[in-house]
């Protein structure tokens, strides 16, 4: 019998190798392409973070982008120079208004803030199951968004927060992606992850095996929020602005789609789905530019990229309804889970 940890480690190392290769090639490419890769890696951290909860519990979450926002705002509070903060966010409490942290501790603080929020929301939320849980997370997203976009003295409201130092370079993004892959793999192999997967397969039988489903869901929710919160901070230091409308429906849709298309029941699926959708949308964007160059149409109604992406995703869903990986893990022997 193989140990569960060895299996998980194999998967994680294979995925890590893939990320490292992409990063190594990326450093040789143009600045624009590097940005595209960094963007994809940040999305991968988000999707992996979501996977920790969604994949292991089987409950779809629409709320994780709220944690992403919280991570981003935390980074903004901690790293924007105090002089700018005074004018942008006059309502910040003193310890935040005077803070001037390096982006790395700020990213961890972003993760911690998201975890804390997940703990508070999760205590009532984990009472819910099935579709009600998904709606609960969605309600949470809307509440987060309403706060981000209206608490002007603390979040800048509808305006964007600027003055964030650059931090998220390609090596940094790759490093955090690898750390997230390892974290997700370790959780998956852990006793807690195993118990949660039991509740995903059959909640009633899991209880009969002594599993406190609410507790396991809460643990996963908090861990998962941590990684997504870190991703939020990285995102903020990538864009160098934080603006509420980025943390809402569109990103929620695209990340959930990435997870499901890859196969939401496996770590490899989370990685594959992100890579697939990011790659495809870039290919389509390039194709669209080709058309653009042919017919010079300023402000034309291109938008073919989105239409093409939607069709491609639908085709994948129809032919592989359990996702690209079908819920299996990448191992040296491609073993079924």
């Amino acid at each position: 019998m193989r140990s569960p940890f060895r299996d998980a480690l194999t998967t994680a190392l294979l995925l890590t190798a893939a990320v490292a290769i992409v990063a190594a090639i990326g450093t040789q490419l143009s600045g624009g392409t590097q940005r595209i890769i960094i963007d994809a890696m940040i999305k991968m951290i988000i999707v992996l973070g979501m996977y920790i909860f969604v994949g292991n519990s089987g409950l779809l979450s629409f709320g994780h982008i709220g944690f992403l926002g919280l991570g981003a705002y935390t980074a903004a509070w901690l790293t924007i120079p105090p002089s700018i903060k005074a004018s942008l966010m006059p309502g910040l409490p003193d310890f935040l208004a005077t803070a001037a942290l390096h982006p790395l501790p700020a990213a961890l603080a972003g993760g911690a803030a998201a975890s804390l929020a997940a703990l508070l929301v999760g205590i009532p939320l984990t009472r819910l199951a099935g579709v009600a849980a998904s709606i609960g997370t969605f309600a949470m997203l809307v509440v987060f968004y309403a706060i981000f976009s209206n608490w002007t003295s603390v979040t800048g409201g509808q305006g964007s927060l600027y003055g964030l130092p650059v931090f998220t370079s390609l090596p940094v993004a790759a490093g955090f992606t690898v750390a997230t892959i390892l974290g997700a793999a370790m959780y998956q192999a852990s006793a807690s992850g195993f118990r949660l997967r039991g509740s995903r397969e059959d909640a009633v039988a899991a209880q009969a095996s002594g599993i406190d489903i609410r507790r396991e869901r809460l643990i996963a929710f908090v861990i998962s929020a941590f990684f997504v919160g870190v991703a939020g901070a990285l995102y903020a230091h990538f864009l160098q602005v934080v603006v509420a409308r980025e943390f809402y429906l569109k990103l929620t849709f695209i990340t959930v789609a990435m997870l499901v298309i890859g196969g939401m029941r496996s770590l490899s699926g989370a990685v594959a789905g992100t890579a697939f959708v990011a790659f495809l949308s870039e290919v389509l964007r390039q194709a669209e530019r080709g058309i653009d160059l042919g017919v010079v149409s300023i402000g034309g109604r291109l938008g073919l990229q989105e239409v093409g992406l939607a069709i491609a995703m639908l085709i994948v869903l129809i032919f592989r309804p359990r996702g690209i990986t079908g819920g299996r893990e990448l191992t040296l022997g491609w073993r079924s889970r």
Partner: protein
Amino acid sequence: MIALQHILDAVNVGGLYALMALGIGLIFGVMRLINFAHGEMVMAGGYAMAMLSALPAPAVIAVSIIIVVALAVAIERGAFRPLRGKDPATLLVASFTVSYFLQNLSVLVFGARPLPFAFMPGLAEILEIGGLRVPLLQFVSLGLTVLALAGLAILVKRTTIGIELRAAAEDVVTAQLSGINVNRVIALAFVISAVLAWVVSLTYSAQIGQLSPAMGVRPLIIGFVATILGGLGSLPGAALGGFLVGAISVLLEVVLPSETRPFREAFLFGLVFIILVVRPEGIVRVCALQERV
């Protein structure tokens, strides 16, 4: 007098949400699918009416209904039928994807800039009733809502087709084995939901006077939340949930002081969250969906 006006507002907004919730609830009933593309039915109805507005009004109504219905049937055929019975998450994301597709297709065809909606401008007329100045539109939309709700209730409760619909909603295999053509029933549910969406298209577009590719998203979200609150799988629950959300949102508008009003959305969804936690199965409980040990 103002209170009366607020009640009228609440009923109007609630009716709109109830129609959305019913359209979503109907499809959930027969397919266990939360159809996020329902919002795009509303959008398509609006654009269809605007594009056809050169025709006489009855023709616009008839043709635009046909367009929305055809779209709904096409979506069912092309996207949802191949996925029937698959993982709920897959179905959900498929409906996301269809919604994303239709929104961007609309950008492609009609452009991203909002278009004016000028069909039946007479709806903007104002009636003076006992000191209340009420736009004709409010009456028309109220009337249409009541008509649609009553029609649906009669259809589902009193007709054989309604029994078939409910039978398929509860157990597809038994329905098939009883000779019910499930493909037809599901297609029918999509047709009805499309007609409900069309009613929303008309009243909603006439109220806001604008069409944009993403116009269906907002009513969809509220309708979806209303469906859950009312109790997924129960049509009366969906209607009730719609009116409840409408009433709560108007109430919050009225009672919140002006500086906290921008946070109204946070209060509304916070309340939704609390209701869910207290009563996860929704207001109307459906026994077929309760898990048996």
